[in-house]
């Protein structure tokens, strides 16, 4: 299939969005759903074809000197800022974008399919916004695909905004629920704040390099950095600032600490949406952004260090919180944060010593590992979320206290969930093992401390995942609350689970090292058995611990909780980050900035204007006595006026 068909991958969802958005109201639910799924299926097929052609094809100068080239397929001028700065919209194919096409279309297709069942009713009532839902899904898919194929950083920014909005719309899908509305608002505003930094970063970067174009930037990153030679701001080079700002943009989307707070709340949206957006695709946009600009970052060590620290901390922080969450979607959300932080860290541990030529051991590896993990994580995390969706759909609750012991009722779901857990815990041969192992290798390459830290987090991951698993499916006998006993869901929902589970098992064998590398060249990797062994061991310990604590109902968890009540409470409340934000937004911004400004406006500024009017009026009132009605008074004023004019002029002129 010619690569130029890539444009279709983007166009079809867009057209679907417009079509469903405008005409959906008039159509039946079935028709809408089937249409959406079919369109997505076609898109998926084309995307696979394109990606495979890109990876394995050889025509049209795809590979030069053994290096797989970046291909710019379309480039349409969207807006010209100035002669140099031209925003174009186009399609860029390179290993990571091709990979992302696969990831996005796969997960999206699964979710489309899954939603046919999931979205048909809402807590037992027929879902009203079914058409709207599919339209938004299509919009999101379009935005995300547009994001990954961006040819320039500004297009990236545009689609960052677009995915933000789609995410907003989908989180707020149940718009009658205040929680959902609040969550969607929060998600949008937090990511918007991050995007502000992204924008500033782009402004600085583009000002010095005079281009937005990725290809131009990455072709010669040293030059790009050198263009801002000497320009510093607060002691650091402006490029470091620019790249840090851009990272903050990415961090917002990817929910890095401290901009992660929106993601758990975003779970208010429909679960398939969480699977698609908040687990597999949109949240990795930040990672993707850094990866896209990797050659620049690698040369700017300061920015890289910041990313590294943020990533490592976030990984642990989120994992710790995930250990105590009782809402299964929230727990999964924190797990997602933690995993994305893995990817971030993996990217950031890459270092280049000054020049690009001296490639460090972890340099290419971290990049590759990160992307690989992105891929595998998308699959198994989507799986986990969809499983969670199925469970929620069955028991109409998110709380694990309402579940317990579901294994008997929903065996397929249980097995799929177990596969997902094993994958994320990094048990061979499941997908997560392979990618996580590469990441740990890269971390150890940077330094022992980084490696140990990340290994520990990996262990924690295994623990909390299995904690969830056991709490849902075992722990104790299920108490049936609803009229129907929970059961495995219809095929539309089960089929995606099975497919994804299958992918999760085999995805680790994809030869990522040969396909997804930063420079397009092959990277030969081999399993580092010492690292792998250690990590598997840690994972097993975690699983064991979880088994001990949560497989059967017992007192132990409660005892642990009581042993460190404060810590538990703090972790359960996500270390009070939400309260902090709440404080800043409501108390500081609303109460101490907006309210005073509004007051100032009404009373001082407007008051001044009104005062002018009042002063005029009262002046008018004050001088009314002049018009006393008495002729003699008039004449007096007349004469004195004339005499004063004369006298004053005399004084002025004569002196």
């Amino acid at each position, binding site marked *: 299939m010619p690569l130029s068909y890539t444009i279709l991958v983007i166009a079809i969802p867009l057209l679907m969005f417009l079509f469903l958005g405008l005409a959906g109201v008039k159509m039946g639910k079935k028709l809408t759903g089937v249409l959406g799924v079919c369109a997505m299926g076609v898109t998926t097929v084309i995307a696979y074809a394109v990606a495979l052609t890109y990876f394995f094809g050889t025509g049209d100068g795809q590979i030069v000197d053994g290096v797989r080239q970046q291909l710019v397929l379309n480039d349409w001028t969207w807006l*010209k800022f*100035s002669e140099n700065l031209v925003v174009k919209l186009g399609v860029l194919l390179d290993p990571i974008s091709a990979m992302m096409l696969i990831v996005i279309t796969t997960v999206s297709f699964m979710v489309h399919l899954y939603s046919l069942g999931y979205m048909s009713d809402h807590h037992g009532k027929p879902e009203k916004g079914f058409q709207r839902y599919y339209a938004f899904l299509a919009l999101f898919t379009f935005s995300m695909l547009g994001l990954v194929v961006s040819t320039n950083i500004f297009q990236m920014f545009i*689609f960052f905004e677009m995915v933000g909005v789609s995410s907003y719309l989908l989180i*707020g899908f149940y718009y*009658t629920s205040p929680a959902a509305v609040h969550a969607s608002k929060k998600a949008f505003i937090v990511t918007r704040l991050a995007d502000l930094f992204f924008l500033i970063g782009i402004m600085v970067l583009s000002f010095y390099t005079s281009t937005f174009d990725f290809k131009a930037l990455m072709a010669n990153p040293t030059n790009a950095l050198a263009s801002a030679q000497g320009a510093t701001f607060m002691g650091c080079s402006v490029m470091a600032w620019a790249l840090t700002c851009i990272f903050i943009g990415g961090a917002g989307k990817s929910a890095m600490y401290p901009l992660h707070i929106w993601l758990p709340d975003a779970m208010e949206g429909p679960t398939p949406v969480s699977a698609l957006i908040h687990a597999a695709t949109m949240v990795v946009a930040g990672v993707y952004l850094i990866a896209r600009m990797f050659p620049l970052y690698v040369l700017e060590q300061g920015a890289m260090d910041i990313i590294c620290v943020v990533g490592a901390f976030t990984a642990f922080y989120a994992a710790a919180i995930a250990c105590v969450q009782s809402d299964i979607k929230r727990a999964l959300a924190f797990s997602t944060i933690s995993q994305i932080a893995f990817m971030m860290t993996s990217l950031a541990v890459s270092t280049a010593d000054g020049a690009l030529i001296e490639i460090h051991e972890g340099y290419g590896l971290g990049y590759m590992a990160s992307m690989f993990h992105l891929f595998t994580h998308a699959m198994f995390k989507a799986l986990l979320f969809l499983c969670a969706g199925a469970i929620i759909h069955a028991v109409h609750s998110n709380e694990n206290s309402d579940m317990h012991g579901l294994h008997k009722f929903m065996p397929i779901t249980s097995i799929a969930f177990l596969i997902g857990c094993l994958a994320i815990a990094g048990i061979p041969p499941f997908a997560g093992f392979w990618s996580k192992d590469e990441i740990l290798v890269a971390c150890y390459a940077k330094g022992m401390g980084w490696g140990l830290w990340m290994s520990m987090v990996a262990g924690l991951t295994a623990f909390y995942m299995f904690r969830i698993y056991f709490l849902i499916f075992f722990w104790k006998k299920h108490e049936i609350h609803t009229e129907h006993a929970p059961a495995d869901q219809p095929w539309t929902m089960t089929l995606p689970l099975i497919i994804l589970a299958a992918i999760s098992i085999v995805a680790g064998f994809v030869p990522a090292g040969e396909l997804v590398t930063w420079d397009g060249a092959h990277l030969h990797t081999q399993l580092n058995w010492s690292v792998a062994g250690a990590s598997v061991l840690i994972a097993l310990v975690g699983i064991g611990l979880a088994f001990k604590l949560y497989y059967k109902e017992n007192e132990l968890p409660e005892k642990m909780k009581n042993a460190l009540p404060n810590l538990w409470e703090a972790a359960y409340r996500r270390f009070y980050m939400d309260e902090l934000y709440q404080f800043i937004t409501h108390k500081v911004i*609303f109460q101490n900035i907006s309210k005073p400004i509004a007051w100032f406006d009404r009373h001082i500024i407007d008051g001044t204007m009104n005062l002018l009017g009042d002063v005029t009026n009262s002046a008018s009132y004050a001088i009314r006595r002049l018009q006393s009605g008495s002729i003699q008074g008039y004449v007096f004023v007349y004469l004195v006026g004339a005499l004063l004019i004369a006298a004053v002029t005399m004084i002025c002129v004569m002196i």
Partner: protein
Amino acid sequence: MIFSNILIYFVIVPLLTLGGLALCSNKGVKAVRAVAVTGASVLVMLAIYLVAYFLQARAAGDTSEMLLQSKVTWYAPLNIELALGIDGVSVVMILLSAFIVFAGVFASWKMDPLPKQFFLWFFLLSTGVFGFFISIDLFTMFMFYEVALIPMYLLIGVWGSGDKNYSAMKLTLMLMGGSALLMLGIIGIYFHSSPEGQPLTMNILEIAQNNAIPHEWQYYLFPLTFVGFGILGAMFPFHTWSPDGHASAPTAVSMLHAGVLMKLGGYGCFRIAIYLMPFAATEIGWIFLTLTGISIVYGAFSACVQTDLKYINAYSSVSHCGMVLFAILMFNQTAMTGAVLQMLSHGLMTALFFALIGMIYGRTHTRDIREMGGLMQIMPYLGVGYVIAGLASLGLPGLSGFAAEMTIFFGSFEHTDTFRRVLTIVATTSIVITAVYILRVVGKLLFGAVQNEHHKELTDAVWFERLSTVTLILGVAAIGCFPNFFAEIIRYSFDPVVEALKAVGM
């Protein structure tokens, strides 16, 4: 013969419409509507033709500063002419105005009482607006400017709501205060328009050509003209007419006022204040730059805590229009292009907002967001429209606000001095604050549970309301999706002014 110039018809058509309306009987609302729609449609067609003409002329290599120039001497002793001419900026402004007038007619379809009188004033206002944009003579520009202002008083006073007397008076007086400053400025410019011994002129192009305004006079005249127009452009701290005025104005009037009239301010600032007095602009522009910078953030913050829909929008307008003036004062092509894009964007978007607010208000009889909620369930069409307007306002790519704001930011950032850069960064923060207040109002108004049981019986938009909003939404989307089309029309119109600024050492 001036009548062979298509531009003059932008004034003649509204005048004819006025005449037609005057002939309608007081009773028959149908005839009134028919005349109004006809007039507005003709205007839209003329505007579209004008754009086509402009593109074709430019493509054909006509690089003169103003196209379609023609002039008739009006007041020979003072050298006042009826001088017409357009450049890219005027063209898009005319297009914008035509669309908003069109949408405004439909938005006031059910105007009551006195529909005939309403449309009379409405079209008088549009006459002023179009006249302003096609003129290149200071006097006629000023005249049309005032023609556009005064109908506002009655439109708000008679057909408004709430504390309309106060608002109408305040609005009129403040804007007239602005025009008083402006008049002084224009007189000052006039008397220094030519070198010693040559006849004075009111023609903007000639004045710019002569470049004879002494520098020490520019120091007085620039602030006069800039503030004069700035008041209309809702520049801090002269914006306070805007919240009250908009809150009381009837829908179509708010639309026209925010959509078009406020643009007169930005347009005038650029066309008269900066173009004619580049020296003072570079010397003391920073004062106004600071003020507009404050406007942007200040308006946005103020909007955050308002509870009246129209107040929110009015403050949002302060912020957005501040952006326009801010960009104009950045003195480079990119930023100025952005300013005009922002004018277009804000014009359509705010008109859309006000149209929707009017329609919602017409149903719920309240504009207090605390008393409403969950309207999306009741009137999905209006709800979706409102969300689209909101998204345009907060700068969603694909809708108009984004392209405009980005052009402004990138243009502003082209400056290397710290002052401008810091201001630019400050201005960019508005995109977050905008998101905050837009989402706040959308969340409270449209989402959530229905607050008032009575609202459940309300109906969704009817055909003329839909037509009105669809027109505007299409405009918003057109600018958002194809900004370059508009930017290319606009961009080169700024060459003369940028060169003039460069010549004085900008």
